[in-house]
């Protein structure tokens, strides 16, 4: 397991370097550099600013310098959010994204598993169809539509939750629901499929034949094996939830990371975009590593190399 973790770490470093390189040159291709402001600058000042951001150097030199900075842990200043360093931006946004993300994930897991397992167990019945329809709406409508409708219903019709903002648990419920819904849909479908697979396995039949009660068969014997694909889905899902929450953040005015992620790309904020991309890669790798660990933990027969 330690060897696996070390290998993972090695791959992560290599991937980070590749991602850094790709992003670096991709960003330099964007026409609107950091110097575009509301005024035309005199050439003298423009030179000064270019110098400040090292833009007067050759791309290769810039690349070397930035790589050096990042290796020393300095992600630099954000080009657009002038008052903040990239580290500060992440420091402000990450806790918010993390708490919103974990709630969304908890919700997605609960709803997804219940729907998936129920519809697998009652395959072909009305329960199956009903749950699957419900679960599929999560990936059938854009989340801005879902969020808009949720606000209308739960904020204005029922007055249950605040319309937007951040600060208390009431503020988190609606956004977490809207953010988690597509993932709930995916989880329910994955768990349904794997549950169906497992239920047709011999050992389940054996258990049934031995007279183990149906609830126990499902909950204890089948669910455990059926969960493995769900667990492996969680890795990319967590990274996606943390960074793909732009729409939800905009609609509910939440100061998380998702917005920076997209806006940095649109606005040509080189440093912030780079910070976000690297953060994403690290997150993704750590999540996948956790998933692998839990795999090995859950099922010792599966070798750690997969």
């Amino acid at each position: 397991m330690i060897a696996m973790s070390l290998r993972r770490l090695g791959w992560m470093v290599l991937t980070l370097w590749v991602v850094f390189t790709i992003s670096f040159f991709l960003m330099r291709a964007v026409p609107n550099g950091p110097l575009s402001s509301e005024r035309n600058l005199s050439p003298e000042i423009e030179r000064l600013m270019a110098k400040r951001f090292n833009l007067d150097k050759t791309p290769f030199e810039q690349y070397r310098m930035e790589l050096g900075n990042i290796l020393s842990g300095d992600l630099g200043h954000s080009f657009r959010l002038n008052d903040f360093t990239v580290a500060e931006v992440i420091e402000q946004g990450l806790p918010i994204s993390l708490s919103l993300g974990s709630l969304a994930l908890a919700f997605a897991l609960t709803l997804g598993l219940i729907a998936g397992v129920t519809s697998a167990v009652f395959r072909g019945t009305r329960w199956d169809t009903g749950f699957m329809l419900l679960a599929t709406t999560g990936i059938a409508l854009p989340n801005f539509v879902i969020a808009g409708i949720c606000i209308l219903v739960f904020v204005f019709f029922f007055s249950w939750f605040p319309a937007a903002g951040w600060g208390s648990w009431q503020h988190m419920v609606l956004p977490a629901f809207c953010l988690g819904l597509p993932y709930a849909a995916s989880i329910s479908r994955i768990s349904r499929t794997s549950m169906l697979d497992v239920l047709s396995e011999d050992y389940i039949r054996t258990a049934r034949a031995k007279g183990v009660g149906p609830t126990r068969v499902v909950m204890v014997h089948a669910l455990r094996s059926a969960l493995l694909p769900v667990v492996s889905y969680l890795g990319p899902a967590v990274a996606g939830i943390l960074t793909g929450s732009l729409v939800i953040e905009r609609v509910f005015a939440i100061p998380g990371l998702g917005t920076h992620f997209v806006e940095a790309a649109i606005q040509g904020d080189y440093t912030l975009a780079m910070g976000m991309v690297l953060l994403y890669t690290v997150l993704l790798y750590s999540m996948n590593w956790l998933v692998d660990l839990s795999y090995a933990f859950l099922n010792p027969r599966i070798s750690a190399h997969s």
Partner: protein
Amino acid sequence: MEPNQAGNSLGKDAWRKLRRNRAAMGSLVWLVVIGLLAAVTPLLPLQAPDTVQMAVQYTEPTLSPVWLHTFNLDTNAIAETPALVEQYQEELVTLQGIAREKEQELDQAARQLPGDTSVEERAESLAPYQVPFDEAYELARRKHAQIEDTIQAPYRKLGFAPLNGISRQFVKWRYAIFGNRSLNSICGRDVLGRDLLSRVFWGARVSLVVGLVATFVSLVIGVTYGAVAGYFGGWIDDAMMRFVDVLYSVPFIFVVIFIITILGEESVARELAYWGIGRITIFFVVVGAIYWLTMSRVVRGQVISLKNEPFIEAARSLGAGHARIIFRHILPNVFSVVLVYLTLTIPKVMLFEAFLSFLGLGVEPPNVSWGLLANEGIKVMSPVKIYWWLILFPSLALGSTLLALNLLGDGLRDALDPKLRKE
């Protein structure tokens, strides 16, 4: 449990199972209907999608009267078009000739300049040639645009975005069948008084094409890549799959937005527009080029399990080349997996297009897509006033299609999965 009849091919068997799945069959029918309607949209008696009428801004859905008599296609102008176009074409050829001549003169003059001339001097001494060239070029350009304008003018006047030849023919037929009748706004009107129903129909064309083409691009790349990696195995497989792993960790939203921003920049966009490449085309390619990752993994897995089967061995012993084995013997057998994956990727791509519309990076007016329409509906919704039809109908169209695709995908998976076939 039916006994598996001998001779039943996998396809037939699956089809039989699929037919019993009512949700999947319903979805299939729905998708076919939507696809057909989208294909023949110009033929339907709808209002033009881009007719702005401020006076009827935000009209609620209405059925009285059922028919509007405003679709007055200028058939005379259309009839005159071919002759005019022919005449302009001739003029264009002449003008292009002149432009080429001037260009040669300019080139010649440029070549005669000494090599060390500074940029300013160069511009100054070439001015006597540059100006006539620019003028001649401009005339040719205008003529070129005039031809396009002459062809499009009758349709544009009615409120159509530039139409291709087939759509123009459809519009003409529609006029022959229905006359100047068009269906009233049974789905209401938007902020500029445009008919929502026809926008949903025209949006279907864009949305479906986006989903299909982008997925197709991902299919081609992913299947080839996955099959090659899986078939050759060893270090090739290792290297290729590690590459996929690395690409997986590049956040693709970021890449797509970056590329769309880069290519949307004015000079680049103009260059691309010259080649007929719009933002939508870029979208196809970029999204297709990103969604192939999962595809390639899935296909690779299948190929690995297939390549040691006896029939592959047999083909190899008969001297078939690698390419032949991959494309003739292996790929047809991964068809089922690919099909399932396809039905599940199309909805993802369509949702992604909607997301880009939310960011203002989606299709550009006068084109419409479902995502764009849904976004417009949501943006005007507030607790003060809900223009419910602007949200309901686009969402319904988008939602039902995506739902159908997902259900069909699930049904296909159930039907094609050998493990479940036992049941």
